[in-house]
């Protein structure tokens, strides 16, 4: 399947976003080939930042949304038409700064949507300020003497908020990342994949992550075990990547809509309305 568009790619050479984009394409292509996913049923959305350009680079239905709001945007799509497969691409500043409330609540309500965060621990597009996940001491343009805040832990945040699929990937481990994306796309409920995505221009973390990440699946982690997932999420010495936690729960739209597909309903309920009025 051709997922290319004619948009000119403007990411820096060597940017981690390439690996992320290609892994996502591979995941979609493989799922389509396997008959597990229909590309026309997919709608993607993004926030604003370097990560946002992803929607221009993918020949899929899309809504290029606002800084921090992509997960809300796709949640609305899902409410309108629960048959869609929706994915939000957000940045770390975008998802954990500007739009953090929506991340917490999407997890809380088990919105059947995938949230993929391009976590480069920096604001790329606005040329290098610290983000919620930047290390303490990070020297960015707005923190020239080093960030004085501790970084936030996105995996623990989403686990604590009720996320039903919580994963971390690294663009330097492409095959593994494709596997995570495929699982996340197929997960029924809120699936969160935080992707370690080095920004070669403002925060080059390639070698750090190459040296310090390890794959959970290699060490027999059980993603059904919440406590184990929690412990792994708090690990900082070595950085685990892989599927931390997955559980099946009813989704928000299952419970809200039952059989209703709002986007397909066209006949106005004029008799129902007449009835409502006549009771008054």
């Amino acid at each position: 399947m051709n997922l290319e568009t004619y948009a000119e790619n403007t990411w820096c050479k060597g940017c981690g976003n390439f690996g992320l984009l290609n892994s996502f394409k591979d995941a979609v292509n493989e799922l389509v080939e396997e008959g597990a996913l229909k590309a026309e049923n997919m709608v993607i959305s993004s926030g604003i930042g370097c990560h946002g350009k992803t929607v221009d680079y993918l020949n899929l239905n899309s809504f290029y949304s606002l800084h921090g709001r992509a997960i809300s945007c796709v949640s609305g799509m899902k409410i309108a038409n629960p048959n869609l497969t929706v994915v939000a691409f957000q940045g770390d500043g975008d998802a954990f700064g500007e739009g953090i409330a929506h991340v917490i609540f999407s997890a809380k309500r088990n919105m059947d949507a995938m949230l993929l965060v391009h976590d480069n621990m920096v604001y790329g597009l606005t040329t290098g300020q610290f983000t919620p996940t930047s290390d303490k001491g990070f020297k960015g343009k707005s923190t020239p003497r080093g960030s004085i805040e501790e970084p936030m832990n996105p995996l623990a945040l989403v686990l604590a908020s009720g996320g039903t699929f919580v994963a971390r990937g690294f663009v330097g481990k492409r095959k593994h990342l494709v596997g995570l994306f495929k699982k996340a796309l197929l997960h029924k409920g809120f699936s969160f994949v935080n992707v370690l995505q080095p920004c070669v221009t403002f925060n080059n973390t390639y070698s750090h992550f190459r040296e310090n990440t390890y794959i959970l699946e290699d060490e027999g982690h059980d993603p059904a075990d919440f406590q184990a997932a929690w412990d792994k999420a708090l690990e900082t010495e070595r950085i685990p990547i892989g599927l931390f936690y997955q559980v099946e729960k009813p989704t928000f739209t299952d419970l809200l809509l039952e059989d209703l597909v709002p986007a397909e309903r066209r006949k106005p309920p004029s008799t129902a309305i007449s009835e409502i009025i006549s009771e008054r």
Partner: protein
Amino acid sequence: MVQDLLTVIVGGEAGHGVKKSGNVISILMNELGRYVFEMDDYPSLIRGGHNFSVVSSSTSPVYSHYMSADIIVCLDKRSVDMHKDRLKDGGSLVYNADTVTLDPGTGLPMKTWIKDIKGIPLMAGTIGVAAVSALCGVEFSFLERIFKANYPRGLEANVELARMVYERMKDDEGKFELATAETRPGHLLAGNEAIALGAAAAGLDVYIAYPMTPASSVLHYLADLSKKLGMAVVHPETEIAVINMALGSAYAGARTAVGSSGGGFALMHEAFSLAGMSETPLMVILASRPGPSTGVPTYTCQGDLDFALNVGHGEFPRIVLSPSGTNQAFEKAAELLNLVWKFQVPGILLTEKHLGESWMTTSIDPESVEITEPSLYDGPLEQYGRYEKTDSGISPMLFPPVKGTVVKASSYEHDQKGITTEEAEKVVEMQEKRYRKEKAIREEMRNLLTVATYGEGSKSLVTYGSTTLSALEAVKNVDDVRVVQVIFLRPFPDWALQEALSGSDVIVAELSISGQFENLLRSKGFDVSAHIRQYDGRAFDPPELAARIREATQ
């Protein structure tokens, strides 16, 4: 003497069932064949404080409530202090004899009676309803029937209390001989209910909102009716989530609306502008209360006109309209939903607490509402572009899933396919495409009721929104003044207003300290010879407004 116009005030603490008794009095009057306007006055708290309901009714339409009353029922002492001066000559004051002694007036030992029958404090309201009913000479069996329908819980206790009231007030029974009619003149609806039903009739599929007075009742009403109406109703974490979800929902093809008051809508601005840029149809219900900031949450005002007209960064067409009463609210809510889908723009239904939370006698016909389908693409799919250039500026829509093409919407400036662009020529192309829709909307408005004229007179009292209701009631007692209501506020229907005014003297009445509406009229080239303003959070009292009109036209 048979009396036509009758005003009743019921006052008490929150928790006394004041609003409920106002509602039941309205229902009683409506059942007697009378038109009703009920205004509920309540502060922003849950217990204590002072609530009161005003019910004005007549056998001809009553457009707004009066603040001087024929009957005042005081369920607590504070109500007596607050309202006794509003009693008209020959009126009746009924009070709670357990908390005050008064002369003249009818004291009823409300607390004692409720205790005697092991009732609850809410039943004070029931006593109030029964007192009004007795004073108006309503047959007990008739009242019993009303109680059956409206107090299904604790019915027996309520009927027993009513019997005690009738017994005690025997001498005053039928003091007010009311004009009645055989049939009910319409149904009792609050403005927000009429707005909600109007949108529903025009095919609203999804309603998303975060609670904020005085818009919350739209959310409550639709949430309650969602199964019956086949609608998805959602209350998310913030107003920012509300509007961003709504845009996703509309993108996917569901007719979607959001609602809030000033503060909540302020949080939606960034995404309102996104609706403009992405050309996503969106209906916003903006229910005003006095600001700035948290302001006076449960009262009415028209200080948000400039805000509604100018919200959103950047330039893009949008529609702002404001209905007067429930009938028009129903029609215009349906019309706005159709218009935003026809032109793929955001639109605001601007209203105030005075319409949204007041009950009015309403006659509407859901069958009369037609659904305008958006322009849908039927060309070769491989050529589809979400933002295709057209003469009208309206690009045909598609909703995923569609096999054979993709639908790409964007907040960035984009080309016809929806891919980001910063090229000057393409920026111009899209700016102009969007702007052409403004012209198309103006064209369309020529076929719609954009300005309404009521009555005759050589002078025009110009209003918008629910102040029109106060004006209509006021001019019943003023000579030679007609009411002209500007319904569409953006685009501004200058042609229709010119025709309506036809050179007459213009007096502007509005609930604003700075005169935003007057300034709007002036900016459109209309002369204003006098203005009447009020900004105390209350709607105009018709006799007071009448006096100010007379003064202004002398």
